[in-house]
């Protein structure tokens, strides 16, 4: 029997790519497919996926849940739970295109929801925490249902297959957004399950990640203490939760988060000016267990922009480029040049140096 993510830890190599328009000008998902397709060699066809931001403007005040179901029975069970906790504004099958490259598809549904006001009040949680908790409940308690996207005005699309095929399968070219990320996966054994593909998302945070973090279990055991449940045993899942925890719950800025998870070395900190040194020491000390070691390059999408970050030694490739209001990030330069041959600027950020790209205020 082939074990699913969650039953076994599957390390993988990968390709990542991301495009953001800082002025929130929307563009077609076709570009990101083109970009990730160039890096076909970095994946092995066993996982691909996309996150798109600004893709549901007509429902932008509702949480968009994308859910995989193993069968109709489970769907029914899950919808009972959803009905209890949320007002469902709209529900539909996510449109897909039948193609020979993508097999074994589960039922894939999309719901636009808002928390049930009385339930929310009774829970004494803030709205986002209520939604996150509900996602955990579905994913851990309803066996066979898996919420893989739960943010506002954003969505994740993923499957087992080459990313370009996955993009076509989900008809991504028919979506328009101001930011997209993509992932091509090279797992080191055969995952049979779509949930294990990237991006991994919680609320509007989505992470695509290339690498295998050596701090995984230290990070996992730490973050699980704060109410997260790592059901997939993947690095990406744990990184997503760390971002959610530090950004949403601890209100750290993305630069500060980088100083926690890809912290500068003590020797570097020693040479900082006094105030900065104190702060860096403080962050490393109190969030010690959230330091991530081992190779990674990650792209974190969120409602206000995109963050690109490499591990502290830069053990994975990542380049960033700018052209007008667009910023591109990818594992390889070729994946950027294919969609934008003439760039204003292109550079490889140093290890641990967060590239924080903010989109203009959402109106």
């Amino acid at each position, binding site marked *: 029997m082939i074990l699913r993510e969650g039953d076994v*830890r599957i*390390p*993988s*190599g990968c390709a990542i790519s991301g495009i953001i328009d800082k002025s929130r000008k929307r563009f077609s998902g076709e570009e990101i497919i083109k970009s990730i397709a160039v890096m076909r060699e970095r994946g092995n066809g066993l996982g691909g996926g996309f996150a798109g931001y600004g893709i549901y403007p007509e429902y932008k005040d509702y949480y968009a849940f994308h859910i995989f179901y193993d069968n109709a029975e489970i769907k029914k069970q899950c919808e009972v739970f959803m009905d209890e906790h949320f007002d469902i504004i709209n529900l539909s099958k996510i449109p897909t295109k039948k193609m020979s490259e993508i097999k074994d598809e589960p039922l894939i549904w999309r719901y636009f929801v808002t928390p049930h006001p009385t339930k929310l009040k009774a829970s004494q949680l803030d709205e986002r925490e209520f939604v996150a908790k509900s996602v955990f409940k579905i994913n851990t308690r309803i066996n066979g249902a898996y919420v893989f996207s739960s943010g506002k005005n954003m969505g994740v699309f993923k499957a087992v297959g080459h990313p370009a095929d996955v993009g076509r399968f989900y008809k991504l070219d028919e979506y328009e957004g101001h930011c997209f990320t993509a992932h091509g996966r090279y797992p*080191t054994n055969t995952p049979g399950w779509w949930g294990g593909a990237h991006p991994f998302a919680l609320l509007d945070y989505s992470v695509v990640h290339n*690498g*295998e973090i*050596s*701090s*995984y*279990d*230290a*990070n996992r*055991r*730490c973050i*699980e*203490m*704060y109410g997260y449940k790592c059901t997939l045993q993947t690095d990406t899942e744990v990184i997503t939760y760390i971002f959610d925890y530090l950004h949403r719950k*601890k*209100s*750290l800025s993305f630069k*500060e988060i980088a100083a926690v998870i890809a*912290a500068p*070395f*003590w*020797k570097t900190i020693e040479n900082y000016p006094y*105030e900065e040194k*104190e*702060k860096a*020491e*403080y*962050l*490393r*000390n*109190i*969030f*010690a*267990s959230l*330091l*991530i*070691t*081992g*190779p990674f390059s990650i792209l974190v999408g969120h409602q206000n922009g995109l963050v690109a970050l490499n591990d*502290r*030694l830069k*053990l994975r490739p990542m380049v960033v480029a700018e052209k007008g209001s667009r910023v591109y990030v990818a594992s390889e330069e070729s994946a950027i040049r294919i969609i934008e041959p003439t760039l204003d600027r292109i550079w490889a950020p140093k290890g641990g140096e967060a590239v924080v790209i903010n989109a203009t205020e959402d109106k």
Partner: protein
Amino acid sequence: MNYIYPEYEVVRNYARCITCRACENQCSNMVHCYVECESRMESKDDNCVNCHRCVTICPTRALKIVKSTHTFRENANWTGKTINEIYKQAQSGGVLLSSMGNPENYPIYFDKILINASQVTNPSIDPLREPMETRVFLGCKSHKITRDGGGKIIPKTTPQLDLSVPIMFSAMSYGSISYNAHESLAKASEQLGIYYNTGEGGLHEDFYKYSKNTIVQVASGRFGVHKDYLNTAAAIEIKMGQGAKPGIGGHLPGTKIVGAVSRTRMIPEGSDAISPAPHHDIYSIEDLRQLVYSLKEATDYKKPVIVKIAAVHNITSIASGIARSGADIIAIDGFRGGTGAAPTKIRDNVGIPIELALASVDKRLRDEGIRDSVSLVVGGSIRSSSDVVKAIALGADCVYIGSAALIAMGCHLCRSCQSGKCNWGIATQAPELVKRLNPAIAHQRLVNLVIAWEHEIKEMMGGMGINSIESLKGNRLMLRGIGLNEKELSILGIYHAGE
């Protein structure tokens, strides 16, 4: 009539003995003597504790000590050791006393745990080429982030200990060990950027200069505790228990309470120093909380408070209680932890292994969401760098080493500390013996040991692709059990090798 046959025999190679009489000069147990008329050395095996002082200093390697082959009639139930103990007690009517840690053949879980390394999917890191960090802070990490008006983080934490490497020298009192042993530990700690612990014997006035690297202990006898003692230290440790003798107090005989020891302990010369089994102001957890806060009040909330407990059966709930008592650090001492003297039957039969205690406590504190509010320090017994790595991967923030530190200074584990005749100048107060431990040598040996371990820890971390020790803490996926049953694996929270 003496029923006990000597346990060891001194074997002298007369072909090599040059009768320099150094063995005779250096044996406080009077094993060796020179027979003038025959111009040769003789030995009294009865007195030998097998401490190897003579063996080590013999310039021609003419000596060795062997275990006597003399034996009782074989019996799996009535072993020679058991029979001898009965002889001793039948003769003396007393409690059997022993020193150092539990020597019995219980499982050593550290030896049944294997460490991971990277291959292919994740690069190993070469500590000679890349930074490899072992610095740790001990103390409460659970802080609410506060910012000033400009949105800048105010980097204020509760008091912390800052260590270059997660190893500290555990509590050994001045009295149970010598002035020179204390000076060696203090000097080494200063040089290494770590901490040593006074134990319950007070802090000698000469060592206040090392106070930046000193943890002072407050134990049930309150010996040597005063305001300056508390305020000079880097941290204060409340000793509730000791791995070698959980539930038992301490007794330093009056013969050792002489001169500076008496002054430092603040008790009259010649009086027995008796530490009660419990603290008589702590009969429950709420009382502990009061002591924690009294000590914090006394030191203006500037010193982290450590609570040290022995690993016993309900260690998880005890630790959970302590984590909520205001303590900054919990130190847990496993049943193999050392002692200057303990009732043998207590040492050998009470308590649980540190590996299991650590794994359960770390898990329990995480399950309760309070692991951040305390650091965990474990000891008893950490014997090598790989034990350190395994302890940290199981969930410890830092380790305490006692026996290993003594061994580095020259201790040969003869386990006769209670006699006060330590030939190595460590567990003794006799001036002619104390001077055998020259801190210039001993402190360097301690420094060497910790540096050597640090190198090995870094190599192992690098192999795992981890370049900072905080990413190893609680990283149990880096461990696998070997030859352990399901229950043991589940308590340790690790998979079996091959899984």
